[in-house]
């Protein structure tokens, strides 16, 4: 039991690491199961007891490829999610910057009011929006969805960017200003790199929310602007066994997002700059 401090630390780290792995695996399990199911036949998918070992088959993926045009839907998803996120960030970041560093009496109220624009449940406002979109010829258009997604995600983006901007000590920006930087340089050179992780999380979140949004994307599109949620819906609950195919199409649909998740979590680097200031 006479471990040196260093050894104790090592043990602590290893134990925590193991626990972290355990928790992550538990949380990931349903997804793992879903991916597993995508390689089973339909009848295998519903077997009792559920099988861990079986002969894998690609038939579900083949069926999906034959039946639907994955790339059409994927492309729509990419365009809609990315465009709405980029536009959203362009609007949200200045707003968050201003609220974080030029706080007024109304800042708190404005923040809460922004969030309150999301209080109306979409189910309750479906028909009014449908009528609006019809009159503006926005039905079944990527533009229409981009507009809606930008608007519904804007409050979230503002809130999150605000949160991370607030972490940055004002004196750093003051120092830059004294050194002669103007506002744009301040933001671009100092603030953004410091809040890289936070902004990456915000972008990822907005992407995910747009990618998986299933109410407006199903109700306001037909085929032209239909994103991946529409593709998934076409495999959902038909008459007949469908769980293996659904698992396959869902795996295909979330694969692109997984890549972005990986990229963005890489941005979560320790804030070394904070130490540098001290």
């Amino acid at each position, binding site marked *: 039991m006479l471990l040196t401090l260093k050894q104790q630390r090592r043990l602590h780290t290893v134990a925590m690491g193991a626990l972290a792995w355990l928790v992550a695996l538990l949380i990931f399990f349903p997804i793992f199961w879903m991916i597993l199911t995508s390689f089973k036949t339909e009848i295998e998918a519903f077997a009792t007891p559920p099988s861990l070992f079986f002969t894998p088959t690609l038939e579900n993926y083949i069926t999906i490829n034959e039946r639907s045009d994955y790339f059409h839907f994927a492309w729509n998803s990419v365009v809609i999610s990315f465009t709405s996120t980029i536009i959203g960030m362009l609007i949200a970041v200045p707003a968050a910057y201003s609220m974080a560093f030029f706080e007024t009496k109304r800042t708190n109220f404005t923040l809460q009011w922004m969030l309150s624009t999301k209080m109306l449940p979409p189910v309750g406002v479906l028909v009014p929006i449908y009528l609006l979109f019809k009159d503006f010829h926005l039905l079944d258009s990527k533009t229409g969805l981009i507009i809606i997604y930008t608007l519904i995600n804007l409050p979230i983006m503002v809130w999150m960017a605000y949160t991370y901007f607030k972490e940055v000590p004002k004196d750093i920006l003051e120092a830059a200003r004294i050194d002669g930087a103007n506002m744009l340089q301040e933001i671009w050179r100092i603030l953004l790199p410091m809040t890289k992780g936070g902004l990456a999380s915000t972008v990822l979140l907005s992407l995910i929310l747009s990618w998986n949004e299933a109410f407006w994307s*199903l109700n306001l599109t037909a085929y032209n602007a239909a994103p991946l949620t529409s593709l998934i819906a076409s495999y*959902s609950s038909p008459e007949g066994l469908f769980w293996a195919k659904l698992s396959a199409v869902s795996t295909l649909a979330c694969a692109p997002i997984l890549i972005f998740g990986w990229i963005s979590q890489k941005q979560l680097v320790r804030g070394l700059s904070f130490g540098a200031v001290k």
Partner: protein
Amino acid sequence: MKSKLLISSLVALGFTSFLPNAYAANTTLTIGTVNNGDMVRMQGLASAFEETHPNIDLEWVVLEENVLRQRLTTDIATKGGQFDVMTIGLYEAPIWGKKGWLTEINNLPADYDFDDIFPAVSEGLSVDGKLFALPFYAESSMTYYRKDLFKKYNLTMPNQPTWDQMMEFAKVLHKPAENQFGICLRGKAGWGENMALLTTIANSFGARWFDENWKPEFDGKEWNNAVNFYVDLLNKYGPPGASSNGFNENLALFNSAKCAMWVDATVAGAFLTDESQSKVANEIGFALAPSQVTTKGAGWLWSWALAVPKTSDAKPEALEFITWATSKGYSELVASTNGIANMPPGVRASTYANKDYMMAAPFAAKTLESMQNADANDATLKPAPYTGVQFAAIPEFQAIATKVGTLVSGALVGSMTVEDALKKSQKLTTRQMKRARYYKK
């Protein structure tokens, strides 16, 4: 720098979505359909249509039944004009036809052989003699049972059992320790889920949804008997989790040899006898849906049909498509591509006169008999003011029956008594009908 370039090109691409679509010389048909097997097949075979009609492009919106119905109704009622072809059922067709939302269908070509279609189906899709949709496939309900288990326990299934007999059979066949359940029935809440089945059970117990004055009859003894029987039967001899089992779950259970009997749609027959997905494909026995005090309304009647909304901007092409998809030629195409047993069922007499079909599809004979027995105008013991076997063809029915369905599933799991569920159902139905101004003050 690279990321800047990437971002700017993505933004540029995003903005191209603002540009109007290049106008093609072709007509595009947007088809909204259910994601059932027969429709998916139609989607696959539609390339044959596109080949013979090079000026028509087909685009598909494929959704689950309830979502599709909501999507299509929202569109047609607001005159959204998003769809050229809509897949609708026996429930919507007369309602929408009466409202003048659908294009009337006439001038069908002679080789379409309209008289070949079962009158019950074509009449269900017409209003005042005017046809508003062409039937794609139709179904009734029937009883499925395991021949091997019946043999093992020395039981004989009559051509049309009574529900009492079904209870007797289930008792013998229920062996939960071996993962074998006496009977599987729909329990999932929904007007097209558990209520479709329960309405046919109620019909056979002599009940009806509404009396001649549109007052619901849940406070009557017929409904009481029917629901008590249903809850009793499923709780005693049904599988666990029955209250969330719909068609698919029960199909999966039956296919994996866990159910001894099942009463559900005639189209299930095709899945059950398919060796690639059913462990018991060769042991399926067929009988008519059970009766009790009457044989009326025992098997339901449903059809998925293709219609052209008035808001379509390509009506002639759309009509051409739906004529193609419901024609004899299409059935033959299915037979040659996917096997004769997969021809769209329940619509044409010629399908059932086809000896090869009857041989290849063991479920065909009972399907035919069930379809011939189903009469949407005479489904209840006492006269009813509505048409429909497992539904009442009024717009309010969908919401009312879905709520009653959730109450019944509550009774099924025991979170309320049957009496309580019926009382609540009576209250909410009366309330709803009153609001919809069915009762003259």
